[in-house]
């Protein structure tokens, strides 16, 4: 069985950041493996452990994204493809998905896993776009997987409840971090990751171009969130505070 996992390097949302003249500045240049993709990698490893096969991660990103590829390899993926773009390119989900589809065009696989969204953009588009480009059945927002024979049963978090969906292969699934707790690479994993094969491809190798008119959506600028008016902390006798606040919510805020 062959599973491809699409992974993205994203800035750590926990790192301090600031906005200057509409641009986003990440203080420490801290980048990580997208948490949702880490869950996708984890899930692929669990499937491999139970059913055998090969896990390959695919990442589109600049040179420094190599460390994120290493992370996935250290977790246990077998090999990787790094589709190299330069730092200044700011592709949107559409260009990522069409680039990935060019990569997958002549590949054989049972499943492609993606994250349900990238932690930085929170877009959640690439997975289903890619499925459509490749004409694959797909399920997004998976919170559980089970493979029996060649039927993949996906538990998907829907609006009302959890939808249990059966997928044939090949198919594409986007994974939520509610699916599992991604393993932290152990030392052996980290050491082995260095020797695992990483193939580097350029956009030209894939015959794609991320040109101006292909980028359909773009970020114009970043803004601070409108600040909330500073609130008040109440400490002391629980009875009194509870009453006081109940009153305020009613008379002052009018929300009771």
């Amino acid at each position: 069985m062959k599973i491809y996992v699409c992974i993205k390097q994203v800035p750590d949302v926990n790192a301090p950041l600031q906005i200057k003249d509409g641009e986003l500045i990440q203080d420490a240049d801290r980048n990580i493996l997208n948490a949702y993709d880490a869950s996708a990698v984890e899930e692929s490893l669990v499937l491999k452990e139970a059913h055998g096969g090969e896990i390959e991660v695919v990442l589109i990103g600049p040179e420094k994204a190599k460390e994120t590829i290493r992370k996935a390899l250290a977790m246990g993926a077998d090999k990787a493809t790094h589709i190299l773009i330069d730092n200044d390119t700011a592709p949107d989900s559409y260009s990522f998905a069409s680039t990935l589809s060019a990569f997958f065009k002549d590949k054989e696989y049972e499943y492609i896993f993606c994250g349900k969204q990238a932690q930085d953009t929170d877009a959640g588009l690439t997975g289903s776009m890619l499925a459509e480009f490749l004409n694959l059945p797909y399920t997004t927002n998976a919170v559980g997987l089970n493979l029996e024979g060649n039927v993949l049963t996906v538990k998907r978090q829907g609006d009302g409840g959890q939808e249990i969906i059966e997928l044939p292969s090949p198919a594409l699934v986007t994974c939520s971090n509610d699916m599992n707790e991604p393993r932290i690479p152990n030392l052996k994993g980290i050491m082995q990751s260095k020797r695992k094969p990483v193939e580097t491809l350029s956009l030209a190798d894939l015959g794609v171009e991320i040109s101006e008119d292909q980028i359909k959506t773009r970020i114009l600028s970043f803004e601070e969130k409108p600040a909330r008016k500073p609130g008040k902390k109440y400490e002391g006798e629980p009875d009194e505070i509870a009453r006081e606040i109940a009153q305020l919510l009613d008379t002052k805020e009018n929300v009771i």
Partner: protein
Amino acid sequence: MDEKFDCIIVGAGVAGLAAAMTLARNNMKFLLIEKGEFPGSKNVSGGVLWGSDLAKLVPNYWEEDAGWDRFINHRRLTFMDDKSTFSVDFKSSHFNETPYTGVVVLRSKFDRWLADKVQEAIEESDFAMDSFIAPNILVEEVLLENGKAVGIRTGDEKFFADSVIIAEGVNNLLTRQVGLQDDYVPADHILTGIKEVIRFDQDVLENRFQLRGKSGMSNEFVGFATDGVEGGGFLYTNKDSVSIGLVLGLKDLREKGKEPYEILNTFKKHPAIADMIHGGKVVEYSAHVVSSGDKRIMPKKLYKDGLLICGEAANLLMNAGKAIQGMDYAMRSGIIAAETIVKAKKAENYGEEKMKQYQNTLDDSYVMKDINNFQDAVHLLHDPVMTQKMPNLICDFGRNFFSIKNEPTQKARTMFGESVKKHSSYLELMKLGWKGSRAL
């Protein structure tokens, strides 16, 4: 791949990274293990890396705009009472020359950057595929065989090496595990450091502190800064923020029943400090234990068969009033430790005698010379006369000296005499002066 390493370094702080860089440059096969998510993620420092050893590790680092924030060309020591400050201020273009005598760093940024440099050095070495920096891994045990360090254990994984360098920082559990430090360290030898990073527009910062290009200022504080608790305060200018914080005696804190955070808040509200930080936004808060620099808590022996301890794990630190020095000591001791391992490998002998050379070299270096020579200064800083009465006296004198009142002005000497009487006595001052002149 499963064969053993020349060396395993525990901890990718300044000491561990310095050791790793030295090993990589000397073509050694090593493993550097860090428990934090990435090097620097767990590290807290006020922020001035003193001295020029950084240039040894990363030659011409000043040509890069990454990793470090500013060089120090302006130093200030400030005495404060509740309303006033009296400063000794020194600025010199001497300090503009490279290699700088001190650079301000933010550890989460600096450590990561230095780790990238180590990685580059690994890639240029013969062991590009066999030396590793491994983050997010906690070393739980140093493996000993007949008293000799042979490797480490993390979870149920064991890794083996001819030597181990412990660079785990002040919370030195492994140093205790291998029996080089007592389990019990008295509280009066431990300080706690707290720090905030307050951000400004870079222009505002540069105008406010008269900074140009990458120049920066360091300011130490004695007196009211610590609100009666032994210790001191600091303020350093980063690229577009200041680091402001306090180092406080743990025992004194406890006895006085005060919270570090409250003291920091009081400090920040002092008129002189408030003027410096108004309009800024707190973006980071952190607290960390720091050694006092008191030699009595240093492990007597910093080595064992196949094992060396460096950096703050060995309590190499000095806080003698004019600066906190811990990172430069960590760096130098890391370099010396690694050099000792390189020699041991050549001699194919990692025995105690070989390892002892580390301590000897360290003793001959400025690190131990300074620590030995300035012990009295360290103690002086914990003397209440120094931390409370002196600053009050000086500020009182300053207030009189600089006041113009449309009435007959006293001679400075008279003013000083009155301030002394108010806050102390000549006898006490003489004692302090005598201690001070010997200490510094």
